[in-house]
C-alpha cells in the first residue's frame, strides 16, 4: 500500500477545527437543552396573557390547565423516559400534595405559599416508598405496583372522610384574593419553568446518565458500578416531590379538592401527552400539552353534546403513537432538525484546507 | 426433494449464512456438520420457516418455500423440525406433547398409529406418558422432542444436534431411532457435532464452516478426507 508522502504542515490546520473551551453561557445552554426556538416559544408563552384574545378569563383558564399538565408531563417523563418505569399512580402523588397543602391551610391556617412546599414532603416520602416497593420488579410489574399504590391512596382519600371529607370535597383557600386568572397563570408558569430547569439539569448531569443506564439495561448498569437501588428510589422520590408540589398549586387554584384528583384517568391524560410528546425528551410533553389542551377545551366548549370526545382523541392518539411513531413529537423534531441542517451551509466544510 | 440455492440468512444485521447451496434427495439421510457457530442451526431454522431468508431460495418438491410461515411449513409442507432447544411444552404431559405433535392430523386412527410408533421407538416415553415434560431427564426430553416431531408423519425431518448432552448409550438409542425412521421412508437432514457417528449412518454430508459450504460428498468419502479427519475427528 502506498502511503501519501505529503503530510499536512501544521500551520494549515484550520483554526475552526480547534475546539474552543466552553463558555459559561454555553454550559448553561447545554445543561438546559433549550434551543433558540424553545426560548422564543417560552418567551411567547410568558407574554401571551397580555395579548388578546388570550387575556380573556376563559382562555386564561385553559392556559393554566395546559401549563399544569405540561409541568406534570415533564415530571412524568423524568421517570418514564429515563429509568424506564411508568408511574401509573402518578395522579395520586399530585393528590397527596394537594390534600396536604389544603388541609394545612384549612386546619392550621398555613399560607398556601408555604403549604405547597409542605405538600412536597408526604408526596416525596410516598414516592420514596413506592420506589422501594418497585425495586425488584420488572417493567410492567413496577407499573402495576405503582398503580396499586395510587389506587390505595385514592381509596384512603375517599374513605377517610373525617380527614378529607371524601367525595363531598374539601375547600381550600386560594393563593390570592383576586378572581382574575392572569396572576395564577404566572404562578404555574413559574412552577413549570422551575420543574423543567431542575429536572432537565438532573437528566443532563451524571445522575441522569445513571438513570438512563438503568433504563436501558439494569444488569449492565450494575456491572458498571451504578447502584440501581439508590438511583431508582432517587428518581421516584424526586418525581413524586414535584408531583406533590404541583398538587399544591392545584389545590389553591381550583379551590376545591375531591378524591377524583387522584383518579387513574388523570394519570392517563398526563401519560398520553408525555408519550405523544416524546418519551425521554422532557420537553416533548410540555410542548404538546398546549395545542392539545386548547384543542380539547375548544372541542368541549363547541361540541357540548359530545362530552368526552377529547378523551377519545387522547386514546386514539396514544394508540397511533405507540404503533406508528413511538418516538413522539420530539422524534419528529429531531428529524426536522436533521433535514434543516442538511440544507444549511456548514461553516467548517466551506473552509478550504490549505496545502 | 429439497433444494437450497445461494441462501443468505441471519439475525437482524448479523448475517450468518453466505450463499449456501445444498440439496437433499427424497429418502436420503444427509448430514450437515461443522464447528460451533458455523450456522448449522440457522440453516435448519430457515428451512423450517422460523427465520426468513435474506436472499436466495429454498425449494421443496419444486415449490419455493423460503420465507413461508413456520406453521405452514410444518402443517402444509410436511417438514418437521426438531430444534436443539427442543421447545417442549413443559407444562404438559408426554402424551399431550405427542398429541400436539399431531396437531395438524384430524384422523384419530392415524394419531393412534403415530402414538404406537413413538411408544414402540421409545419405550421410556410410554412408561412416563402422564409425566410432565418439564420433569423429564435430558435424554427423555430428546426422545420426546423427536417423538413429537414424527407424530405428524413428516416427509422431511430436520434434526438439530440430537446427541448434544446425551450419554453415549442414549445417543445410540437416538441414532437407532433415526435409522429406523429413515428405513421407513422419511428423508432426514441431520445437524450434528458428533461427526464420527453421524458420518457412519448418513448417505451424504455437507461441511459448513463460517456460514459457507466448505465440503460436500458421500459420507464414506468424507470419513476418509484429510481435512475432516484432522479438524473434526481428531485424527
Amino acid at each position, binding site marked *: 500500500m502506498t502511503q501519501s508522502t505529503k503530510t499536512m504542515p501544521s500551520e494549515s490546520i484550520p483554526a475552526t477545527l480547534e475546539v474552543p473551551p466552553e463558555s459559561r453561557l454555553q454550559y448553561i445552554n447545554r445543561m438546559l437543552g433549550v434551543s433558540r426556538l424553545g426560548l422564543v416559544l417560552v418567551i411567547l408563552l410568558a407574554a401571551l396573557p397580555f395579548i388578546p384574545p388570550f387575556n380573556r378569563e376563559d382562555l386564561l383558564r385553559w392556559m393554566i390547565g395546559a401549563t399544569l399538565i405540561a409541568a406534570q408531563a415533564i415530571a412524568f417523563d423524568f421517570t418514564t423516559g429515563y429509568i424506564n418505569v411508568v408511574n401509573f399512580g402518578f395522579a395520586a402523588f399530585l393528590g397527596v400534595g394537594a390534600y396536604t397543602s389544603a388541609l394545612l391551610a384549612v386546619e392550621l391556617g398555613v399560607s398556601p405559599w408555604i403549604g405547597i412546599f409542605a405538600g412536597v414532603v408526604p408526596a416525596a416520602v410516598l414516592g420514596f416508598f413506592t420506589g422501594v416497593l418497585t425495586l425488584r420488579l420488572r417493567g410492567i410489574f413496577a407499573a402495576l405496583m405503582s398503580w396499586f399504590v395510587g389506587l390505595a391512596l385514592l381509596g384512603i382519600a375517599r374513605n377517610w372522610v373525617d380527614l378529607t371529607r371524601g367525595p363531598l370535597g374539601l375547600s381550600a383557600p386560594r393563593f390570592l384574593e383576586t378572581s382574575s386568572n392572569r396572576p395564577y397563570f404566572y404562578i404555574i408558569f413559574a412552577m413549570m419553568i422551575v420543574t423543567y430547569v431542575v429536572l432537565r439539569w438532573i437528566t443532563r448531569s451524571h445522575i441522569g446518565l445513571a438513570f438512563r443506564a438503568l433504563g436501558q439495561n439494569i444488569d449492565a448498569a450494575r456491572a458498571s458500578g451504578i447502584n440501581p437501588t439508590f438511583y431508582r428510589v432517587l428518581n421516584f422520590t424526586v418525581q413524586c416531590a414535584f408531583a406533590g408540589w404541583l398538587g399544591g398549586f392545584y389545590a389553591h387554584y381550583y379551590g376545591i379538592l375531591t378524591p377524583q384528583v387522584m383518579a387513574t384517568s388523570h394519570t392517563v391524560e398526563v401519560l398520553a401527552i408525555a408519550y405523544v410528546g416524546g418519551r425521554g425528551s422532557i420537553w416533548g410533553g410540555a410542548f404538546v400539552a398546549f395545542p392539545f389542551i386548547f384543542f380539547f377545551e375548544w372541542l368541549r366548549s363547541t361540541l357540548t353534546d359530545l362530552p*368526552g370526545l377529547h378523551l*377519545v382523541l387522547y386514546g386514539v392518539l396514544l394508540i397511533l403513537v405507540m404503533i406508528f411513531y413511538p418516538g413522539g413529537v420530539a422524534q419528529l423534531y429531531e428529524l426536522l432538525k436533521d433535514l434543516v441542517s442538511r440544507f444549511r451551509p456548514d461553516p467548517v466544510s466551506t473552509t478550504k484546507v490549505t496545502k | 426433494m429439497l433444494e437450497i440455492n445461494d441462501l443468505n440468512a441471519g439475525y437482524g444485521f448479523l448475517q450468518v449464512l453466505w450463499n449456501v447451496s445444498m440439496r437433499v434427495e427424497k429418502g436420503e439421510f444427509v448430514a450437515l456438520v461443522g464447528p460451533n457457530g458455523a450456522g448449522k442451526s440457522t440453516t435448519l431454522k430457515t428451512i423450517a420457516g422460523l427465520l426468513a431468508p435474506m436472499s436466495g431460495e429454498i425449494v421443496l418438491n419444486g415449490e419455493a418455500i423460503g420465507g413461508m410461515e413456520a406453521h405452514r411449513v410444518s402443517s402444509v409442507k410436511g417438514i418437521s423440525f426438531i430444534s436443539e432447544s427442543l421447545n417442549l411444552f413443559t407444562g404438559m404431559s408426554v402424551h399431550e406433547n405427542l398429541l400436539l405433535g399431531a396437531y395438524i392430523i384430524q384422523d384419530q386412527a392415524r394419531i393412534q398409529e403415530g402414538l404406537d410408533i413413538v411408544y414402540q421407538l421409545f419405550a421410556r416415553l410410554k412408561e412416563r406418558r402422564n409425566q410432565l415434560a418439564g420433569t423429564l431427564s435430558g435424554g427423555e426430553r430428546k426422545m420426546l422432542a423427536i417423538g413429537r416431531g414424527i407424530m405428524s408423519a413428516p416427509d422431511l425431518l430436520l434434526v438439530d444436534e440430537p446427541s448434544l448432552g446425551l450419554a453415549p448409550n442414549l445417543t445410540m438409542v437416538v441414532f437407532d431411532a433415526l435409522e429406523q425412521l429413515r428405513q421407513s421412508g422419511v428423508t432426514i437432514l441431520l445437524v450434528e457435532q458428533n461427526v464420527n457417528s453421524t458420518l457412519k449412518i448418513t448417505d451424504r454430508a455437507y461441511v459448513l464452516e463460517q456460514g459457507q459450504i466448505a465440503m460436500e460428498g458421500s459420507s464414506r468419502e468424507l470419513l476418509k478426507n484429510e481435512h475432516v479427519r484432522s479438524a473434526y475427528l481428531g485424527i
Partner: protein
Amino acid sequence: MQATQTQESFITDLLRKVFSAAGLTILLTLVIAGATVFIAGPFVLINAIVTGGMWALMAAGLSLVFGVMNIVNFAHGEFFMVGTLVAYFVFTPLSAHLKTNPSPLLSAVAPFLGILAAALVGALLGAVIEKTVFLQLRKRTKEQWIMNSFLLTVGLSVIIINGVQILWGTNFKGITRYWEIPPFDILGVTVSVDRAVVFFLAMATMLLFWYFLRNTGTGRAIRAVSQDETGARMVGIDMNRIQVLTMALSSALAALAGASLLFMFPSYPTVGLKPLYIAWYVVILVGMGNVAGALVGGFIVALLQTMTSYFIGPGWEDVIPTAFVMLILLVKPSGLFGSEVKGIHER
C-alpha cells in the same frame, strides 16, 4: 411392599400439596369463610360466592391473554362494561314485551338471551381489536412489547369508555331483577333467584372453559402457545388464529360476567373499572398466567372484599385488598399458586 410404598408417596405428595403456598391459601380461605359465616351469617358468604364466580371468569380471561399473548390488558374491564350494555339493550325490550305478552318460557329464557348476546358481542369486539390494533403493533414492535401493548390497552380503555359515553350517555341503565321469581331459602338464608342462577352459570362456564382448555385440540393449542411459542409454531399452530381466538375468548368471558351481574351492576361507562382491578388483584394473587389459579382466586378475592366491606366498612374494600396484593407482589411476585411466567423479577 410395593403397595405401601405408593401409598406413602401418595400421602407425602398430598401433604406437600396441602402445605404449599397454594394449599395453605385455600385452607386459610376455607377457615376464614367458615369463621365469617359463624360470625356474620351466611349472607356475606353468599355474596362472595356469587360475585366470586364471575371475578374468577374475568381473571381467567385476563390471565389467558397474558399467558398466550403477553399482553397486560388494561381494557379488560371495558368488555365487562360492554357486556352490561348489550344485556341491558337486549333484556329491557324483551322485559317490556313480556309485560304485555306474558310467557313463562320467554321470561325464563330472556335473561340468557341477553347474556349470550353479550358474550358474542364481547368475542367479536375482542377479535376485531386483536386483528386491527394488536396485529399492527406486533408487526412493528419487537422490544418493549409488554409495556407498549399495555399502554395501547390504556388507550383502548379510554376510547371505549368515552365512546360509549358519547353514544349512550352516562346515566345508569339498570334492571331490578332478571327473573320475577321470589327468593327462596337455603339454610336459613334468603337467596334471590338471580344470584343462584348466576352462580350456577359461572360454575357451568368455568367447567366448559376448563374442559375446552384441557381436552380439545384448540384448547391444547392455546396452552401450547402460552408455554412455548416457537414449539407451537413448529407443530403447525397458526399464531394469528390462536391470538384472535384467545382475545375473543377472554373478552367473551368478561362480557358474560358483566351481563350476568347486570342486576348488581347497572350499565354505565365506567362500570368496568372496579372489575378491572379486581381481576388484576386475582391474577397477581394467584400468579400471572395461571388460569387454573385464577378460577379459584376469584372466590378468594371476593371473600376478602365482602369481609372487608362487612367488618371494616364499605368503601374500604378497595383499599385493603389493594394493600394485600401489593404485599404479594413484594413478597411473592410469582403469585401464591405459582406462575408459569418467567422474568417477573429484575435480576
